[in-house]
């Protein structure tokens, strides 16, 4: 099925196309030949759309009516102190936790009802390292490709591409146990990108890395967003990783406090810089 005035395009082309001109219709990607498409039938495709999401652990409410979205081809940072609900949110998006109230969709696929379709488009790096230390780099990637349902030949090709891009190709046969923290994180990034996801979730992926490794990883992720149109939702505790025009969602005690450009939020809060903004969030009365 193809709509009038729309040209069906390939996945790579779609990623290159500007977000404003892309729409999603019945999971088929189209790009307007002449510009934006208007009307009720087509809706702009958000990589993530969260509306009124609440979650409970027993009687404790850990997410409170959370709503925000991440557009395709954009990067958003989810900031907040420990216990703000970031990991819970990631666990819901990766279908490890059930949705209690509200809705979360990944490219229009409800994570509660179409979890398989949602997960197929997500690459994820969890806060805790999840590599098998006894296996080699290649074996870890091969396992991930298999549980994604990928053809082994394609897994080999993709693993080679990603490992070369991340300068790990020479270490492909090394047991992960022999790699340092920075290299392990890079393997996790390679693994997360192996099945060519459209959305990357990074839960404090740079935690525990030295400055050089952090800068290198950050630059790599930003290049993926700019060059491949990947959508990224990431969390960090490190203020120095944030850029002035960073698009952020501030979370505290399970609720969204504010969202927008970091500089705008700093100005609106009347604080000196991003560090003061986050410090304000960390104090009990520090609402924005």
């Amino acid at each position, binding site marked *: 099925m193809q709509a009038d005035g729309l040209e069906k395009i390939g996945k790579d082309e779609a990623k290159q196309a500007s977000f404003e001109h892309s729409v999603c219709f019945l999971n088929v990607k189209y790009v307007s030949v002449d510009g934006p498409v208007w009307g009720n039938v087509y809706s702009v495709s958000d990589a993530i759309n969260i509306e009124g999401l609440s979650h409970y652990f027993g009687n404790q409410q850990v997410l409170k009516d959370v709503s925000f979205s991440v557009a395709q081809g954009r990067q958003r940072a989810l900031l907040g102190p420990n216990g703000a609900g970031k990991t819970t949110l990631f666990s819901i998006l990766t279908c490890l936790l*059930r949705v209690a109230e509200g809705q979360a969709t990944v490219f229009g696929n409800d994570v509660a009802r179409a979890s398989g379709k949602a997960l197929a488009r997500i690459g994820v790096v969890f806060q805790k*390292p999840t590599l098998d230390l006894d296996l080699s780099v290649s074996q870890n990637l091969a396992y991930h490709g298999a*549980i*994604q349902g990928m053809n082994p030949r394609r897994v080999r090709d993709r693993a080679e591409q990603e490992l070369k891009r991340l300068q790990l190709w020479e270490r492909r046969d090394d047991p992960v146990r022999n790699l340092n923290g920075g290299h392990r994180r890079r393997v996790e990034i390679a693994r997360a990108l192996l099945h060519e996801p459209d959305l990357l979730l990074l839960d404090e992926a740079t935690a525990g890395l030295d400055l050089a490794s952090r800068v290198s990883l950050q630059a790599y992720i930003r290049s993926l967003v700019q060059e491949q149109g990947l959508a990224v939702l990431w969390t960090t505790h490190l203020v120095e990783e944030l850029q002035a025009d960073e698009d952020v969602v501030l979370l505290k005690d399970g609720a969204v406090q504010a969202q927008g450009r970091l500089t705008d939020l700093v100005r609106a809060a009347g604080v000196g810089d991003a560090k003061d903004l986050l410090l304000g969030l960390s104090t009990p009365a520090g609402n924005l």
Partner: protein
Amino acid sequence: MKAAAYFYCFLGVLKRELQRFVQQRTRFVSALVRPLLWLAVFAAGFRNTLDGLALPPHDTAISYEVYIVPGLVGIIVLFNSMQSSLSMVYDREMGSMRILLASPLPRGWLLISRLFSSALVSLLQVYAFLLIARLFAVTPPAWGYVAALPAIVCSAILLGALGLLLASIIDQLENFAGVMNFVVFPLFFLSSALYPLSQMREASEWVYWLCAANPFTYAVEFVRHSLWLGFSPSAFWVTTTVAVILTTAAVIGFDPSRKMLAGRPGAH
């Protein structure tokens, strides 16, 4: 998802378990030492226990070594299944389980693949043990080794599903180790692995009934009959039915969210 995706996933999980098995050589050795000790030491001491009895599926009197080998096959499978479940608890505690569960394939399929991968490792251990057992004059017919394969796989699925069910219920690694003592040893000792049920009944009626109600008894008997080219319908039906029931219960009962984040307020 296409059927091929399920197949690649299944193969991938099996391959990973094999790779881990190759890496962990001490696991292989220790898996063999336990039954070999039973065979070499325990069976030597109890050589006259059967007193010339001809027990099914055998038509003539057998040695205690011949009797006990299927029971020791059972204990290899039992320990490996529990160890596999233990590694699942470890994976869950360490977080690597998240990667498996973040697969777009149905969770049930992932768990069933995991059960079969554990069964594959059990098979390797069992056949290595059966080859060594030939040195102790336990020489089943050649086709018996082939006939025993489905029985061993069924037993491994049954016990693996039991372990999976336990892993679903148990919160922490430390608790799992404790429960092993209340599950593994009663399952093993209250079965026909070491003594025939007929002799058990002569000693104690209620112990006999406990043994007769133990699914592990039927798994051992299924292996015993198959290995000697016999067939026990009751052993077959009980083993396969309980395997299906436990697998279904384990898949339905497996809720990672209940254990991964609950009780960890700092992880929100």
